[in-house]
Every structure is written in structure tokens, then in C-alpha cells.
């Protein structure tokens, strides 16, 4: 926050110029200085310095909230969204929790996109809720979503109403993604009638590495900054709007330190690995065999979770989501 004339009564033009000449331009600069030293150096009243300090602290500080209040809020807003697949629901202890960020990581054609479609279809089952599908590649696919809504296939009106409540957006770089997330948050926090996003319950961001890789490179701290900022934003979105956020990620190989077997881990590095609340790694069963068409079974391993013991592995069938093994 920058200091401005008229922020409070003590912050007049004279004070501002004095602070400016001393090289204090932001609130952080001001607060980090000792008020006594500051008043002596700038030759201003100690009382004024203290009053500005109080105003700044009051404005910048977060207010403490009791845990009981938080618990009540959580109880009233928490929804557990089914993923539409019994095996995954079991893996995630019921499904996708609102307020949490869940990550699906897997190689190509391991069913990440399909699971996202299942989740979107399941999220709009409820008459009021809606889902937002953000994606760079335009991978949102109508036949798949219709397939996921097979239980109401006969009822045109129901299908239409559900489809209308899934919003799809293509964004092409990480900055557009920021703009969009900001917009969603701003719109949904307004007190008006349901915004264009409806009663948002699920936000899906497909293929996160594709947003991040183009900015990776020379300036590593800056890029890590963008990545952690994105993580914070997604979590903020999940928390403030009480929505479940689902992102997909790819896998990279782990090399070095005497590893001879090719182990795979989720991409985007260590900084990102702290961000999701839940992480599932998908692997094709028998992916190493050259047979074609490959089996439709996928092994899902929960490697990070806020509800379950990890690691926890289950096998699901991409062709038949109700099948339990």
C-alpha cells in the first residue's frame, strides 16, 4: 500500500513531503521503522507518527476470528461434490470438498479430462449449482459430458438445464487466467441476484502446466512467484466462494541420485506440490505393454490428502465409471 495525503488527519501534505524525502513511500516502509527514531529524524510530532501507525495497522491487519465461528461457517457452506465415480468418491472420502483444491496428475490419455467431465456433470446434478470449466485447449467435449449425464438422457429439459449450468471458457495464457479468476471472484461477491456464473460449486482448470511452461526459463524467481501466486488465487477462490477447485497436471520423470527405475511424479515442481489439498496420480494399468487398444483400467493413487490416509490406491474403469473393483 502506498502512502497518500489525507489517509488520516495526521497525514497532511507537510508530513507526506517529509516522509517522501526520507525515502518512505509505502506503508511497509513506515511500519518497519521505529516510531521514536522516525519522529526524531523527520522532526515531526511523536504523537502524529503513532496515530498514522495505528491507522495503517488497523487497515492492513487481518481481524482475528474465533475457531467456533469458522467451524460454523464451514458447516453451513461445506458441500461434498460427488465425482460421479464411486471409486474416486471412496478415494477422496466422499468426493470433492468445497474450499479445497484437488489435483489430478497423469500422463496423456490416462483419463484426466474424462474425470473432469464426470465431476462437472455430477456438480450440476443439483438444481441450483453450476460449474465453470477453464481450459486452454478446448478439450471440453459434448459427447463425453452427455455420456456422463446418461442417467437423465431421456429427459431433454433436464439435460438442457444441466448443460446450461456448465460454463466453459478458453483462456490462452496465465495472465488471462488471473484476470478471469479475479472477475469470477468480483462478480460472485456482489450482493446482487445470481451473477452470470450462477451458484458456483466447482471450478475446473485443465492442464495447468500448459499455462506455466511458456513463462518458465531465464527468470526463475519471477516464474516461481507467478506459480505460487496462481496457487494462492485458486485457494482464495476456493475459500472465499466456497467452491471446489479441480486442476489437472502432467507427470515428469525423476532422475538422479542413483535412480535407475523411471519413477514419475507430478509436474510443476516442489513449490506447487505444497499447494493442492488433495493429489491423485493416475496410471494406466499395463501402460508399458505395447498392446492396442490398451485396457481401460486406470490405477488412481491418492498421494496427498486432508482426509484420508495416504498412499491409497484404487482401480477405476474409464469406460464404465460405476464399475467397482
Amino acid at each position, binding site marked *: 500500500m502506498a502512502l497518500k495525503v489525507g489517509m488520516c488527519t495526521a497525514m497532511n501534505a507537510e508530513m507526506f513531503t517529509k516522509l517522501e524525502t526520507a525515502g518512505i513511500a509505502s506503508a511497509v516502509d513506515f511500519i518497519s521503522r521505529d516510531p521514536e527514531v522516525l519522529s526524531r529524524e523527520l522532526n515531526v510530532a511523536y504523537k502524529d507518527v503513532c496515530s498514522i501507525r495505528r491507522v495503517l495497522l488497523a487497515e492492513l491487519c487481518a481481524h482475528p476470528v474465533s475457531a467456533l465461528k469458522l467451524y460454523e461457517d464451514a458447516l453451513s457452506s461445506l458441500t461434498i461434490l460427488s465425482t460421479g465415480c464411486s471409486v474416486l468418491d471412496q478415494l477422496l472420502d466422499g468426493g470433492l470438498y468445497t474450499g479445497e483444491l484437488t489435483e489430478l496428475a497423469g500422463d496423456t490419455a490416462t483419463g484426466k479430462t474424462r474425470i473432469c467431465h464426470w465431476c462437472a456433470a455430477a456438480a450440476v446434478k443439483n438444481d441450483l449449482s453450476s460449474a465453470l470449466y477453464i481450459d486452454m485447449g478446448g478439450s471440453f467435449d459434448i459427447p463425453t459430458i452427455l455420456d456422463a449425464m446418461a442417467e437423465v438422457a431421456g429427459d431433454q429439459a433436464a439435460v438442457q438445464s444441466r448443460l446450461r449450468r456448465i460454463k*466453459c471458457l478458453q483462456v490462452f495464457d496465465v495472465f488471462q487466467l*488471473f484476470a478471469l479468476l479475479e472477475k469470477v471472484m468480483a462478480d460472485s461477491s456482489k450482493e446482487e441476484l445470481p451473477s452470470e456464473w450462477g451458484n458456483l460449486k466447482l471450478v475446473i482448470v485443465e492442464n495447468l502446466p500448459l499455462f506455466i511452461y511458456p513463462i518458465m526459463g531465464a527468470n526463475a524467481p519471477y516464474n516461481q512467484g507467478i506459480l505460487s501466486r496462481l496457487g494462492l488465487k485458486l485457494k482464495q477462490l476456493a475459500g472465499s466462494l466456497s467452491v471446489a477447485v479441480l486442476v489437472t497436471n502432467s507427470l515428469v520423470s525423476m532422475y538422479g541420485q542413483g535412480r535407475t527405475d523411471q519413477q514419475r511424479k507430478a509436474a510443476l515442481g516442489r513449490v506447487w506440490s505444497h499447494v493442492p489439498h488433495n493429489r491423485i496420480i493416475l496410471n494406466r494399468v499395463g501402460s508399458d505393454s505395447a498392446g492396442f487398444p490398451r485396457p481401460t483400467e486406470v490405477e488412481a493413487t491418492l498421494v496427498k490428502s486432508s482426509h484420508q490416509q495416504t498412499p491409497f490406491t484404487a482401480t477405476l474403469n474409464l469406460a464404465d465409471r460405476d464399475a467397482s473393483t
Partner: protein
Amino acid sequence: MSYSREITTFPLNPVVMGKLLQVGFNLASSLISLSPVNISLSAGISVDEAKQVLKIVQEDVNTCLQISGECVAKSAFDLLCAEQEQEHIVTFCEAVDSMLGGGVPVCKLTEICGAPGMGKTQLCLQLAVDVHIPEHLGGVEGEAVYIDTEGGLILDRLVELARSAVLHCQQVVEASQSTLDQSSHALTVDKILGGIHCFRCHDYYELIAAVQLLPTLLTQNEKIKLVVVDSLASPFRHNMDDMSLRRRLLATLAQSFLRVAANFKTAVVLTNQMTTKIMPREGDSHHIPALGDNWAHVSHNRIVLTRDCSNNKRKASLYKGPNKKEELCFFQITLKAVANSWLCVSKLFGSSSKLELVHVIHGAHHALV
């Protein structure tokens, strides 16, 4: 409008951003109300830099407002309606077409992978010709951009294919005994060749430059419905020591291709080479498409062309597609002309239950002879 987006989330120069943050400008709202001169004075950056910053922040605020105007966010229902008008570019090979749901889809990325001589370039040339098929014959009546990085664009072959396609279209019109006056729409070889815009790129710099220019070209020429890159792999498989650079460049190219496909409603067809993957545990190896795992996530449809050892037929396998199940079909590259074989294809299809089809394109060696 209270606009509380952090300036760190804008595409600003990191040095300038550092200076802005130092003096306490951490929200867009704190910048927008100020003049460039004010910002430059308080942050110690030049006025030009300050203007640049304001421009970026304001533009972004505007696009953000646009997102709220219904034009951008589409519901799945809108997409369902659009899906019914989804256009496809036919390959003239019924099995491959049906595998892809009617041909190479417009607005999507299709990747064709295969070892040398499997027919990748043939398929690309065929598509560049087929995109011209007039609408009344079920085509998309567009033009094509052909970005050639391997020198595989052989004009004799292209002319041959174009001639066959023209002949085939004429036969279809005659067979249907259409009374409509189609003379104005009639397909000619000149028209086809005139509608294929070729770029010859020798290395990845040229490829990236050509791809960067695509939006301009596509704005000027709205008829372009197909962008072919043959091959994407070759500029990235030699003279690339820095693998992280390659990953970054490929991701940037992927963004550009996806943007072109979505914004200009074109089909993007990319070819990729094959590489050998050795399984460390089992010790055996098999062929996989090149360019790495991250690239594999980009395309919507991935077809791998191989040769079936048992009956020596060319085999196309759909390795990746969002809705379609994994499938495979056989095709052949024959010396016959397109139109004749096309009829022969339908006959074969009717009589035999196997997906055993004659694909009607010549081998490249034939054109070279």
C-alpha cells in the same frame, strides 16, 4: 469500480514491477487512478515505462470486463448447439474419417505421428487439397496454410492429388444429376493450388516466426480453414541441446496453435516423428511419438501410423481422443487415382466386415520417380 487485483499477476517487466512493489503499488486499483508522470516520479521509472504499465493494466481490466459480457463464457448447452455445426475436413479414407468422427475436426488440433514412409506427408497433402471441396459437396470450401519444415511438399504429387480430387468432385456432381448451376463453384486445379499458402521453414526460429504471423494472415484471409505443419518435430530434434528451452518453445507454440484453432475456427494438423523408448525395468523398447510427454497433452486427437507386419497394410491407430474410444483401422496408399479408388472403397466396405480399406493416395516415391 474497485479493482483489487495484485500487480504481480499482470504481464509486466519484472524490473519495473519490483520498483512499483517497493514503493507500495501492489494493487491495480492503486495505479489506475494515477497519471504516468505521477507513477514515474514515485516509483523511479521512466515515463514511457509508466505509460506501458498503465496500458497493460488498463487493457487487462477491459478484457476482464469483456469476459463478463456474455460473449466469452459459453455454457455447455451453447457448445452442444455449436457441436451440431461442427465442420470436418474429409481425408477421403472412410475408415480414418469415421475414426475421427467425420474427418479432421475444425477448431481442434490433430497430430499425425509415424515413422518415415508411413504416409504422414501424404495425409497432409490430401487434407490441404480436400479443404477446398465446395460446401454443396459436403466440404468446408476453405483454403490451407502449409508450413513445411522437412521439404516434403512435392508439387507434382500435390497437382496429382488436386487433379484426382477435381475429377472425383465432377463425378459426384454428374452422378447426383444435380440441376443446380455449380459452374461458379466448380473446383479447378488452379483454384486448389492457388488456395494453398506454403511456408518453407528451415529451423525453429523460422517456424516460430511463421506461427507468430498466422493470426495476421488469417485475419486478412478468412477463407483459410486448415493449418498444416509438416513436421513439427524436425526443427526440434536437432541443434537443441537445452531441453528446458525446447519444452518452453513447444509450450509457447502449443498456446499459439490452440489460439489460432479457437479464434479463427481452423483445423490445425501437425505431424510428429517417432522415437524409441526403452523400458528400464523390462529392458524391451517400443516406438512412441517424439517431442516428449508434455507435448503429448496438447493435441486433441493423436493418430499413429504404423505398418502391420502380418498383412503388410498401413495401420492408423487413434491413440488419443476426448470422446472416441481407442480404435484402429487399416488404409493403403495405392497408385490408383482418387476417384476410382473411392468407388472401390465403398464396395469393399459394403462386402467385407473388416475395416479393411483402400486408401487412395500414392506413395511419395512414386512422385519422385
